């Protein structure tokens, strides 16, 4: 069977989750690989959530928040950016790879961008193959 990436999406309630709702309302089709978890703000995303997702077998983690300057909570999205950027080198070090974690700004009106982002990230992960953590699980 071909490899189907499992991707966990963390999206803020006000912009990105609403954008994903709009993608639905507009019937924009995109791959089913990203499963979205709603948060009030992307600033809520911490290292624990991301690492746990990888530990539980995610092949990729997508974090989406309001575009800078548009954060519903003023600057929570900037915290998310710092955290994601800080975590990337660590992911690289432990062999998961920095490219498996992606951060994007998607506003409530960008249904199309949700589709494009999910499509391109799924493609990236598909090329990277299953997460090393998943591969070792399979080997055992």
């Amino acid at each position, binding site marked *: 069977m071909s490899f189907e990436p499992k991707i966990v999406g963390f999206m803020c309630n006000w912009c990105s989750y609403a954008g994903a709702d709009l993608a639905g309302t507009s019937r924009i089709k995109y791959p089913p690989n990203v499963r979205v978890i709603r948060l009030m703000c992307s*600033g809520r995303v911490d290292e624990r959530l991301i690492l746990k997702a990888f530990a539980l077998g995610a092949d990729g983690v997508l974090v989406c928040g309001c575009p800078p300057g548009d954060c519903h909570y003023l600057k929570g999205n900037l915290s998310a950016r710092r955290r994601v950027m800080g975590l990337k080198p660590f992911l690289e070090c432990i062999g998961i790879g920095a490219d498996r974690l992606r951060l994007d700004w998607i506003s409530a009106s960008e249904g199309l961008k949700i589709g494009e982002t999910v499509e391109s990230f799924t493609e990236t992960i598909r090329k990277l193959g299953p997460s090393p953590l998943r591969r070792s699980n399979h080997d055992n």
Partner: protein
Amino acid sequence: MEPRIGVYICHCGSNIAGTVAVEEVAQFASGLDSVVVARDYKYMCSDPGQNLIKDDIKELGLNRVVVASCSPRMHEPTFRRACEDAGLNAYLFEMANIREHCSWVTEDKQAATEKAKALVSAAVRRIYYQEPLETREVPVNSNVLVLGGGIAGIQAALEIADSEHQVYLVERDSSIGGHMAQFDKTFPTLDCSACILTPKMTTVGQHQYIQLMTYSELEEVSGYVGNFQAKIRMKAKYVDQEKCTGCGRCQELCPISVPSEFDQGLGKRKAIYIPFPYAVPNKAVIDAESCSHLKGLKEGKDVCRLCEKGIEKKGIAGCEAGAIDFSQEDKIVEVEIGSIIIATGFQQFDPSVIYEYGYGHYDNVLTGLQFERLSNASGPTSGEILLTDGRTPESVAIIHCVGSRDQNYHEYCSRVCCMYSLKYSHLIREKIPNAQIYQLYIDLRCFGKGYEEFYNRLQKEGVNFVRGRAAEVTGVAETPEEKGKLVVLCEDTLISRQRRIPVDMVILSCGLEPRADAGEVARLVKISQSADGFFLEKHPKLDPVATATDGVFVTGCCQGPKDIPDTVAQASAAAARVLAMISKGKVEVEAITSVIDEKLCSGCKICKDLCPYGAISFDEEKKVCSVNEALCKGCGTCVAACPSGAITGRHFTTQQLLAEVEGVLV
């Protein structure tokens, strides 16, 4: 108490069931831990659907409910209420979004079903750890801030003030009235715009429940629904508004002339001016950018002051009321309000970027708004339609869709240009009976009440309708007839022929676009803009005046192009929403806040500096931080940042989120 979970999978007619095998998902859910019952039903949001939940809570002793249906942004309140009706705390309910995030966006049915299972499993695992929470009720301040004094703001302000609630109406210009005050006649009834607007403007100016703040701008907004604080900058007018009688003597004395914004640059105004004769308030202001005395003051010089002192030699007195006050400074006024209505309107598309239409290059190529002023009795020509050299035009071309329905500029239709273009034909015909009038259109969109009839009437009045988008306006003549004329080049698609139409005047029916600083307003009140830049409403059909921020409403053209009837209707709708909030007197605030465990807190204060609302304070005695729940908005940034794991974000606890992660990865 051991969780007893009920799971309900909605078909949403065929919206979900057409793509997702709902029975299979229900079957899957029934096998999950602690699930007592799993059902699928045609419409969960219907009364029978909700009753299904209520009955199961009572009969099966459910203490957790999961509904897999549409977005929680849509129906979470509905199902929470149903749970509460059956005695279950609203926060023991969870939704899995298998419509917007699954059935509507997935083509493959098998994949959609698998995704739906994952989302249901996440919700079930998450709800296992959910806890009952109490919502807070906060009182609603009955004062209202209306931003923008065009017809939308005026209408909304009057509706609210008439029910005896205080309104602060903030307008950037020195008079209210907005674009409608500039118009000549209004389509399709041909009412004189000023005649129907001025009574409303005057009422606003005199209303005991409206505090009119002209020449003012919103600077800062804080607080939350029902309890906002706003800072408003009242720009210095340099004229004591109490003393000014609006006599206009100062305008006659002032030696500085600048293009009038109100007349769209066709006429002049002075540096001290009343923008138009029926301005409200009818008081002068000094434009500090143009006034030579105010400019001189910056360099330490004392010049001019003719408006204040008059011309002594000729025995002409200055302001008799003694209203001129060059020492005035901007004032910041703070107001407390419960709700905000945004009615900041639109700006006209600037056609100079469409080089081929020659706007700004050729005289007698006008924008729509310029023509309104030209045709208006209070305009620069007292309502005579004249060319720049003072001749009367014998032929006029009106080019539609300038900046609208054009991938290069704005993709959307501006909704009013067809009708105002038709209106121009009528106004020209009325004033210049023999004029040749050409309408160059793509499609004529006459959709409103009485609009199609108006179009039919125009056809009888003898207007040349040419179907085709104008390609160019040129002054280069190819034949003797074209000499000294503007030539409009286009393809007449109805006769499949290229045409050159020589005319004396070209009117560009420019589209409506969001104001250049709409983004700043959006940031101030924390609302979003749609892709075209207009403010985003909560729901395009069912909630067109509310926004993602509770207590902030949008109305008029700042939400999207619309004509006057639609604007007025939407303004009244926004007012009705505000009045409903006021009459209820209180709003429920989500119980989603952060709480710090004193025992775990190390007192590092990282959270304190991150909190955008200043909700976290440090107790010097105990050396720990604590959260003020009244200020906390529940974003969870502090939860993520706490190095000791001492902060819990209610309803979004780490345990709940990790369970959800586990769920989506099954």
